[in-house]
């Protein structure tokens, strides 16, 4: 029982992180229909940027974290302006191929600067962050990751539900022409969704870096878990992305706990295929509202 609860908690906190990272991916897809194949590299860039600030420049952790968030926000914004904006109006497949190109480029640059070895952050999380319930110990990193996941999901939820910019972003995802007709700056919305996507990706990258260590290939491939996550949740549903993230996180931890760690990366995909056979639009994909 204790073992089960332990796995449950670890799975939930990793899952929240997957959900957070998938939120960024879904936002880009919803606003501009672009599948961002460079998503995994956005996680890696965040993780390495934080590494530079914390280990090389020795900045205080909180400051380094904030600088990483701001930096990745600007990075996402810039990537949209430089690479994506000129392709607005071109066939989508060009844009998607461009993101494939971006992913290779980012990966190449990261390998050039940091090499392919496993690096680690200094141990900066205070041990007091850990929790103990009877026989269950929650490591500080899982506490931190859950806190961060919940905080940001709530913040983004409020942002999309109530803020003008959040409502404009949803309007563009809903009907781009109608949004244009009311004067919504659609290009600004695209840029903002890239900025937010890069921001949430880098947050996930940092925490995953704390859990697993930092390696370009490793983090990039974890980033690509957004695909099972968002397909499971429904490609166009933000709530679905979060629940999809949690499901994949739980499946992974339970698989490696009860079956074998080597199956960890396989089982989620098997479940995914099974679910898609039953629900082709994912668990929470938007059902088109059709009226006659």
């Amino acid at each position, binding site marked *: 029982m204790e073992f089960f609860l332990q796995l449950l908690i670890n799975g939930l906190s990793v899952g929240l992180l997957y959900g957070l990272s998938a939120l960024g991916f879904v936002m880009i897809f919803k606003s501009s229909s672009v599948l961002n194949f460079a998503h995994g590299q956005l996680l890696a860039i965040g993780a390495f940027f934080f590494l530079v600030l914390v280990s090389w420049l020795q900045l205080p952790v909180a400051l380094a974290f904030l600088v990483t968030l701001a930096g990745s926000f600007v990075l996402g914004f810039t990537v949209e302006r430089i690479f994506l904006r000129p392709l607005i109006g071109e066939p989508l497949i060009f844009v998607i191929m461009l993101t494939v190109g971006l992913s290779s480029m980012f990966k190449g640059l990261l390998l050039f600067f940091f090499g392919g070895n496993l690096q680690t952050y200094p141990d900066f999380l205070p041990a007091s962050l850990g929790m103990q319930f009877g026989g269950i110990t929650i490591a500080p990193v899982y506490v931190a990751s859950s806190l961060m996941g919940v905080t940001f999901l709530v913040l983004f939820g409020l942002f999309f539900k109530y803020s003008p910019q959040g409502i404009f972003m949803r309007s563009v995802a809903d009907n781009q022409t109608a949004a244009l007709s009311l004067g*919504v700056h659609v290009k600004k919305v695209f840029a903002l969704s890239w900025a937010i996507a890069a921001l949430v990706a880098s947050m996930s990258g940092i925490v995953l870096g704390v859990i697993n260590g930092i390696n370009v290939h490793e983090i990039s491939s974890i980033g690509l878990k957004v695909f099972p996550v968002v397909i499971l949740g429904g490609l166009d549903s933000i709530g679905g992305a979060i629940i999809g993230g949690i499901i994949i996180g739980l499946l992974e931890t339970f698989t490696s706990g009860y079956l074998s760690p080597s199956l960890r990366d396989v089982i989620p995909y098997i479940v995914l295929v099974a679910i898609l056979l039953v629900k082709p639009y994912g668990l929470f994909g938007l059902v088109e509202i059709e*009226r006659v």
Partner: protein
Amino acid sequence: MENEKDDTLLLVNNISVVYSDVIQVLKGVSLKVPRGQIVSLLGSNGAGKTTTLKAISGLLKPENGKVTDGEITYDGAGIQNLSPEEITRKGIIQVLEGRQPFKYLTVEENLRVGTATRPLKPYKKDLEMVYHYFPALTKRRKTMAGYCSGGEIQMVVMGRALMAHPKLLLLDEPSLGLAPLVVKEIFRIIRLINEEQHTTIVLVEQNANMALKIAHYGYVMENGRVVMEGEAKDLTENPDVKEFYLGVGAGGTARSYRDVKSYKRRKRWL
């Protein structure tokens, strides 16, 4: 001349519009829209009414269309081929054909998107104004727009446009597919908005009967050209308009769509 410039809010002067660099749809369309009036643009399907509105609002661009000839002057300045972001901020708002709400946003969120041209400014008063014109929306404010009825959606999309404080409102077939009573109500509100908010309106319609009742002036389009224009009451009396757009034949009987088509054919070949 000076007087005319003051009175005219929008002047469309002999414009041609081409889609995808090859498909010419408008061939020299001219319109004059005086301040504070309702000008109706009539004509059957495919005449180029929507294209004319999109040329004015800048929405041709995303459809790969372009004004290749002529000028569009609004408030004394040329606006042809400006982006929709710029044109909406000058006070021109188009209500798209076919009722396009943001389906997954609530009614009130739909209305809030109407503040996009002036974000972060207070909008509570404007919401009240919209609910005043469309009281039916008050109890639907928290409903997802996709689940509203056709008439309610028409109110949402018009209310959304009002939130932007338009000086020139372009309405594309607001009555299409609505029940007669709802149509009547919508037209009553259009006239009210024009009278109380002093909003200048270009009203595109196939329902010439209703449109000419509230419009001051009207244009009839066919095949990318303006084929007739005049004061609304003169158009109502015009025998051709009567026969082919008001659906009243010489003997006072309604004519079928087939007759309208043969009329078009006759016009083309004779």
